[in-house]
């Protein structure tokens, strides 16, 4: 059970890292995610069935996700469409594309196909439990992605990307084209989301064009839960917070799934719960801000 939550939290954590980049770093609420997650899943599934090496599959999935993000950024940049609408447009178009990739099917099973997870289980050859093997693999993968991402945000272009979400004028004043940065940022975000989708398909044993519904909301909920854990301005801790948030979120969803029936809850109610989680997070963080503001106002009086 706990291994399951951790593995799922880590797989979806890659997606949450993507959501974190757009929503928090770029301040570009990007809904492409709902389309690029299943894009990664279906592309991965089709490539595995065709007998490609999973590594090649992941490269293709990464590129496809980046392309999806680029489309959103271009619609936003060139046609001056609000970022939310640009994302919805790409997401909607991706739905048809995903069905095309699956050759006009809505889903495909991966039961008897070689995946990274069957590979890692074989590699350990029964020395550890299957769940533990998956966990070791996912910890390694997510750690590599996290460290690479941290390094990226310390490079010149990464730093400028961070400034873009906070102060676009400053980025322009420093001689950088914000349109290019948005392509890089949104592209990278969706590439991560697609990779996450690729892992999810292999973990779940199927790819479904509908598996992306509400993904961006669950990603946002994970980011917000993570933000309650600790405060920092260091990117390494911020990405760690995102991953912990994702695991916590999966934990909460697990509780909802397994103990929810006591209050007559079904798995269908999970999306409602996710939304309510976000609303609660918003209320709590708003009150927190008000509390700190009140404290600031009171402080000078105390000094008197």
């Amino acid at each position, binding site marked *: 059970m706990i291994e399951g939550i951790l593995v799922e939290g880590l797989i979806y954590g890659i997606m949450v890292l993507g959501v974190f980049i757009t929503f928090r770093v770029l301040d570009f609420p990007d809904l492409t995610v709902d389309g690029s997650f299943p894009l990664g899943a279906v592309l991965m599934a089709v490539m595995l069935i065709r007998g490609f090496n999973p590594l090649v599959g992941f490269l293709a999935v990464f590129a496809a996700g980046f392309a999806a993000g680029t489309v959103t950024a271009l619609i936003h940049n060139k046609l001056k469409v609000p970022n939310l609408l640009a994302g919805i447009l790409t997401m909607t178009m991706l739905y048809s594309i995903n069905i095309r990739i699956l050759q006009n099917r809505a889903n495909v099973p991966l039961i008897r196909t070689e995946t990274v997870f069957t590979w890692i289980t074989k590699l350990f050859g029964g020395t550890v439990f299957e769940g533990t093997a998956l966990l070791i693999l996912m910890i390694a993968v997510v750690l590599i992605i996290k460290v690479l991402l941290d*390094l*990226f945000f*310390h*490079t*010149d*272009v990464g*730093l*400028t990307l*961070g*400034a873009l*979400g*906070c*102060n676009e*004028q*400053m*980025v*322009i*004043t*420093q*001689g*950088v*084209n*914000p349109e290019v940065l948005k392509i890089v940022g949104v592209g990278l975000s969706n590439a991560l989301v697609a990779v996450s989708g690729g892992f999810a398909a292999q973990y779940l044993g199927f790819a479904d064009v509908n598996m992306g519904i509400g993904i961006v909301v669950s990603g946002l909920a994970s980011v917000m839960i993570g933000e309650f854990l600790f405060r920092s*301005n260091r990117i390494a801790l911020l990405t760690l917070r995102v991953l912990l948030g994702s695991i916590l979120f999966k934990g909460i969803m697990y509780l909802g799934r397994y103990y929810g029936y006591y209050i007559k809850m079904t798995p269908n109610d999970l999306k409602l719960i996710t939304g309510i989680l976000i609303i609660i997070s918003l209320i709590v963080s708003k009150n927190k801000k008000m509390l700190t503001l009140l404290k600031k106002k009171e402080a000078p009086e105390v000094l008197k």
Partner: protein
Amino acid sequence: MIKIHSLSKVFHEGTVNENKAINTINLSVKEGDFITIIGSNGAGKTTLFNLISGNIFPSTGRIEINGRDVTKDPEYRRAAYVGRIFQNPTMGTAETMTLEDNMTIAYYKGCKGLRKSLNNKLRDFFREKLSDLDMGLENRLKDNVGLFSGGQRQALTLLMMVLSKPDLILLDEHTAALDPGNARMILDLTLKYIKDYNLTTMMITHNMGHAIKYGNRLLMMDSGEIIYDIEGDTKKNITKEALINKFEVIRKKEFENDEVLLS
């Protein structure tokens, strides 16, 4: 160095709201010039800066910087040689990022690569430059810029701009949002940098005293036109009263013109 040829900007052209913000301006700025610009609200001072920096594009006319026609260049490209400071001290820095990150972004102006520039050598350089500001910022490299005061942030913006070695700097009432003490400090810092780095400067100010006292050339703007342009000794010896007088003389003439038109 900078040549502006019959530059015009019309907002909402062809509608009832048509507004001629800049009306056929010709201006030539020499290297090392320090030009102060005064004028009432809506005179077109900021619009002129927006046109020079590329934030908006002119309806007609041409802008040349260092002999290159930059009229169609986007703002980010012109930023490589035009530095700009806004009235709002939060406009020049990213508040959710640390001081050292902000300075790194400014230090390598222009296209960014996948290189990690920030190292201890650069940090030492930043510390040295920050200690010149005499604000204790050299010990706060890891602090978020959002924690700094308006004066500190504006000083930092100035420093970051100077580090990028611009050919021309545009100061848009950059002390107006600060309290008198900080405004004084920022102005002194600006004058020091202009002198030390021999910066070509255009400064908008509402303070006529400053406009006369600083710089070698003074422009007075009204209704999108440069109505008065003096430099050298003429500028040095002019008084506030004479300027106001001049302003009224020119405005009255326009006023009478309107009267004639209406009657």
